[in-house]
């Protein structure tokens, strides 16, 4: 069987459904609706129309030669998911699931969000389709991503700060699951990554695989051949699965996922789940996760809120085990340097998440050499990260900041 044919619920020993019985009926209903929609030309046409007239698909590719000079002279090509409506790849999945929710007669969407990108995308779809929307966001994240909270509220969604547990993304997922258990008749849980119980990992991947399908053809058209490597950042892993999937059965194309190593994969402060974690059960699926000896989830750390998650999608766990994709750690500092490099050499400000893929690509290009072609998923734009970057590089007008901002912010220009 081709690697592209995997449909879950299991990827090797990973995946499955580790959830309360109360949710099984809803997951079965969703699975059936999704499988029907997948072969329904009306659904597919509706989604394609939305992507053409609302998302802005196909997204372009951009070759970045001035950036590539720092990557051993390899040809580096960016897939520009940052140019999608709402500023990242997240909209691909959100529109697909929102359409499905409409088909199921659900009137209310709930979502978890870390950085706020998925929450903003879900709030956008809810506004577009006239649905009620509640977004769960860890209290720590509502504080560090206040502008995205405002965006969601402006779009008409309710944002609920989660004060339980570690008050971050993993707790927001727990709270969304609790809401879903209690309101499953009216509500669709619009999970934002390729994790969670079946059918989410397969369904979310399928809504994002358009990224790789477009890019594969675009690179062929530009260079006359397939790339030597495809790179992406990996938190939960949705943008990486989206661009990897079209290439899974092209053995000559190497796949690299870059995990957030935070302050270093050898320190306790990282989010490098495959690099440093081990298999376990979290949020409904078996996969790699960061946990202590007792199986208690360990908090992750990354400068990028979108990668700050102690789990990873089960298909990535499987691709890592069978050796089809490699997963490598990239630190906060490496990612921030790559962010600035792309901004200064190409006039493109990437999301800090995507900057992890760029940092990995700089290293990879030096290994693969000047004749190689590397396709990078530029999964999001960096506008949302300006406060973080401004503090990190100490380029904010400090007079405009409050005292505590200055205190915890100025880390200096380290590059």
């Amino acid at each position, binding site marked *: 069987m081709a690697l592209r044919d995997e449909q879950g619920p299991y990827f090797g020993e990973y995946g499955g459904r580790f959830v309360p019985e109360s949710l099984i009926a809803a997951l079965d209903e969703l699975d059936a609706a999704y499988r029907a929609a997948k072969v329904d030309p009306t659904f597919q046409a509706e989604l394609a129309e939305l992507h053409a007239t609302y998302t802005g698909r196909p997204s372009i590719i951009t070759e970045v030669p001035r950036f590539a000079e720092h990557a051993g002279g390899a040809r580096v090509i960016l897939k520009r998911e940052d140019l999608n409506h709402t500023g990242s790849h997240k909209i691909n999945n959100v529109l697909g699931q929102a359409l499905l929710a409409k088909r199921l007669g659900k009137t209310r969407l709930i979502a978890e969000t870390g950085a706020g990108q998925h929450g903003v995308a879900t709030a956008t779809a809810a506004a577009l389709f006239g649905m009620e929307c509640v977004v769960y966001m860890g209290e720590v994240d509502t504080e560090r991503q206040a502008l995205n909270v405002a965006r969601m509220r402006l779009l008409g969604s309710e944002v609920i700060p989660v004060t339980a547990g570690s008050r971050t993304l993993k707790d927001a997922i727990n709270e969304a699951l609790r809401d879903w258990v209690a309101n499953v008749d009216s509500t669709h849980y619009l999970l934002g990554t390729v994790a969670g119980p079946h059918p989410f990992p397969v369904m979310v991947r399928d809504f994002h695989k358009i990224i790789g399908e477009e890019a594969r053809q675009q690179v062929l058209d530009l260079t006359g051949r397939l790339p030597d490597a495809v790179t992406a950042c990996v938190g939960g892993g949705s943008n990486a699965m989206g661009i990897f999937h079209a290439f899974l059965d092209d053995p000559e194309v190497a796949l690299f996922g870059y995990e957030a190593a935070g302050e270093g994969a050898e320190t306790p402060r990282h989010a490098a789940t495959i690099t440093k974690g081990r298999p376990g059960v979290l949020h409904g699926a078996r996969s790699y996760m960061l946990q202590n000896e007792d199986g208690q*989830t360990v908090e992750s750390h990354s400068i990028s809120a979108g990668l700050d998650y102690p789990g990873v999608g089960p298909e990535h766990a499987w691709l890592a085990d069978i050796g089809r994709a490699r997963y490598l750690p990239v630190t906060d500092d490496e990612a921030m340097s790559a962010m600035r490099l792309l901004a200064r050499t190409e006039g493109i400000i990437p999301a800090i998440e995507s900057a992890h893929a760029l940092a990995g690509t700089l290293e990879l290009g030096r290994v693969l050499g000047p004749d190689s072609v590397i396709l990078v998923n530029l999964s999001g734009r960096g506008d949302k990260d300006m406060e973080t970057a401004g503090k990190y590089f100490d380029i904010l007008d400090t007079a405009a900041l409050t005292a505590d901002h200055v205190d915890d912010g100025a880390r200096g220009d380290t590059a």
Partner: protein
Amino acid sequence: MTGVASVIAARKAAGSGALIGYLPAGFPDLRTSIEAAVAIAENGVDVIELGLPYSDPVMDGSVIQAATLQALNAGFRIRDGLDAVAEITSRVNVPVLVMTYWNPVVQYGVDRFADELLAAGGAGLITPDLIPDEARDWLAASERTGLDRVFLAAPSSTDARLAQAVASSRGFVYAVSTMGITGARSDVDSAAKTLVARLRAVGATSTCVGLGISTPEQVREVLQYADGAIVGSALVKALSDGGVPAVAATAARLATGCTLS
């Protein structure tokens, strides 16, 4: 018939039904949690459901979340939970089922956990996030050791899934009274009664209802159609507010719901 099932059957035969009381191990500290479990057993609780604190308890409401988080922050280890089972069962003649999310058992080792739970005198496991479809290792380990295994049944479950829950469970089937999470509610959902009838229709002989039960009146109401009533958050709140004396008094009050009226 296993210990849990025979205790429930005996209470039912006596005319009412069983009271099952949940408390988390390690809350407010390990010593007090053991004393509290012994106290509720001495005050009318027929079966103890001892919860193992877990970092991501998706089935639990705010009261139990806060208690288990406090236990974890104080350094609770899974090993402590097994030690608690051993001490409780050495002091009171009441079956102790361990309620645990699945990952801690996976990481401990399913067979090792089953062996040590059996050695500690534990009766079995209640697994809120493990459905029979994913339970191959646990089904094998519980067959080997004779431990009970309690799976959940929900109002949303199909008849086929209810039949699977009944066939897979031993001790009792945990009927979730409402589509929701743990926590006191003013009314026990009427869905519970329908669910218990559906479970009986597919062969259940021992069915206990949980979620939202917090008063003796609710216990009495549930026992009119079910074999047991499970109370959690109300006991945890009493322990949190007034310590062991308060949780003992709450258990005694709840147990009045089990007497024939």
